[in-house]
C-alpha cells in the first residue's frame, strides 16, 4: 500500500491519488489549483468558464497552452470516426437534456452536432468560432486532466503515483497495477482483469444515463446515443489518448485507430459479447 493517499472531488467525479512518496499539503494544494483551473476553462456546467464564453459570445478564446494536445487528439479522432466523435457535441447533449440545470428531459428530434469545419478554427490552444458554439470535452477532457495532475506530481517531487479519476487512471509507479474491468450492468462484477503500466481509461454508458436509452456517449452525426456498444477500455501511454480512444471505440472499429495510435483495447457490446486486442496484457472472462 503506498504511503500517501489523497481523495477529492473534481469535474463531477471522485478522484484518488496514491503516491509512493508522501504528498504534502503544499503539493496537494498545487494539484487542486490545477484541477480548478481546468474546470474554469472547460466546464460547460459553470457560466464563468471559457467554454461558456465561447457558447455565449463566440469569437476567439485562448485556452491554456496545455490544451494543444487535447485539441489535436480531438481533430484526429474526428477524422477517424468520420465526425462521430466531436467536441461540438455539446448542443446535441443539451438537446437530449444533459444540460447545466440537469433538465434530463429530451427535446425531439435529436440534434446532430455541427460540422467542425463550418464552425470552428483551432490553432494550437486558440479556438475561434464565428458564431457562438458549445464545446464539450467529455470524450477526452478527464484523461487530459489526469495527465496534467500526474505531471504536476512529478514537478513537486512525488514521481511514482497512481492518479485515479474514476474511470480514467494513470499509473507511473514501477510495478504494474492489477485492474478489474467493471461489468457495465453490475458493478459488483468484472468481465476481465488487466495489468496496467501507464494509462487505462474506461467508458461506459451505464452511469450517466437518465432515461430510456439516453446516455452521454453520442454519435455527433445523429445526436443520438450509441446503442451497440456497452463499454470500452483502452490501455495506452497517456490518459488523454486512452480516454479519447475509449470514446472513439463506441463510434468506430479499432482498425480505424490502430494505424495512428498504439493501444490495447476491450469492447463489450450490448448483447453481452466482446472483442479485444490479441495482445491484451490480461484476460477477458468468456463463456
Amino acid at each position: 500500500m503506498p504511503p500517501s493517499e489523497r481523495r477529492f472531488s473534481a469535474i463531477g467525479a471522485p478522484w484518488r491519488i496514491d503516491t509512493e512518496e508522501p504528498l504534502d499539503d503544499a503539493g496537494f494544494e498545487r494539484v487542486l489549483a490545477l484541477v480548478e483551473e481546468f474546470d474554469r476553462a472547460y466546464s460547460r456546467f459553470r457560466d464563468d468558464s471559457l467554454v461558456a464564453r465561447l457558447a455565449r459570445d463566440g469569437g476567439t478564446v485562448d485556452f491554456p497552452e496545455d490544451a494543444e494536445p487535447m485539441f489535436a487528439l480531438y481533430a484526429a479522432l474526428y477524422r477517424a470516426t468520420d465526425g462521430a466523435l466531436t467536441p461540438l457535441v455539446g448542443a446535441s447533449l443539451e438537446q437530449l437534456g444533459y444540460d447545466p440545470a440537469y433538465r434530463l428531459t429530451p427535446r425531439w428530434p435529436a440534434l446532430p452536432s455541427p460540422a467542425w469545419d463550418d464552425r470552428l478554427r483551432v490553432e494550437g490552444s486558440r479556438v475561434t468560432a464565428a458564431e457562438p458554439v458549445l464545446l464539450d470535452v467529455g470524450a477526452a477532457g478527464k484523461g487530459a486532466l489526469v495527465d496534467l495532475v500526474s505531471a504536476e506530481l512529478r514537478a513537486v517531487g512525488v514521481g511514482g503515483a497512481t492518479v485515479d479519476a474514476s474511470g480514467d487512471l494513470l499509473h507511473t509507479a514501477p510495478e504494474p497495477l492489477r485492474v478489474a474491468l467493471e461489468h457495465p450492468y453490475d458493478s459488483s462484477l468484472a468481465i476481465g482483469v488487466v495489468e496496467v503500466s501507464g494509462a487505462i481509461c474506461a467508458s461506459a454508458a451505464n452511469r450517466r444515463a437518465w432515461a430510456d436509452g439516453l446516455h452521454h456517449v453520442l454519435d455527433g452525426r445523429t445526436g443520438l446515443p450509441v446503442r451497440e456498444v456497452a463499454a470500452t477500455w483502452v490501455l495506452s501511454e497517456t490518459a488523454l489518448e486512452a480516454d479519447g480512444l475509449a470514446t472513439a471505440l463506441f463510434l468506430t472499429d479499432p482498425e480505424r485507430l490502430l494505424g495512428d495510435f498504439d493501444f490495447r483495447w476491450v469492447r463489450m457490446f450490448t448483447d453481452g459479447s466482446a472483442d479485444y486486442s490479441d495482445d491484451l496484457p490480461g484476460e477477458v472472462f468468456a463463456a
Partner: protein
Amino acid sequence: MTDRSMPRTLRSSRTALVSLAGVGLLGTLAGCAGGAEAEESGTGSSTGADSAGARSYADGTYEADGSYRSPGGQQTVTVSITLADDTVTAVTVTPHATDPNAKQFQGQFAGAIADQVVGRDIDSLNVSRVAGSSLTSSGFNDAVEQIKADAAE
C-alpha cells in the same frame, strides 16, 4: 490467433455486424442489421428512437466482398452471412491481405472475440483498482432520482 489467413467464424451476430459496419459493407447489409436489432433484447440500452421497420429476407447464406480503408491502403474481405428467420446465425470473415502491413492491420481488426462475457465477483479477483464508467456527481444522480420519482407518480 496464430494463423491470420484462416477464415474466422464469428458466432455472435451482433459483434460481427458492428464490425461489418466498419468495413464499408453497411449499405449492402443494412437490412440485416435492422433485423438483428429487432431481435435484440434490451439489456439496458434500448431506445425508442429507432425507426427501422420490419423487413423480411429469404433464408440462406449470402456472400459479398467488401473493402475498407486502412492505414496500409485499401483492403478487401469476403463476408459470408447465414440468415434464418431474418436473424443472422453465422458470419465468416475472410481477409484478403495483400501485403504484410495490411495483413497486420486485418489481424488487429479481427482481434479476439468473446461470444458472451462472464462476470466474476470483483472481490474474488485480488485487484488494486476497478475501471468502470465514471462515478457521477451527486447533482446528476439526484436529478435522475427526481425524474424516476416523477415518472412513478
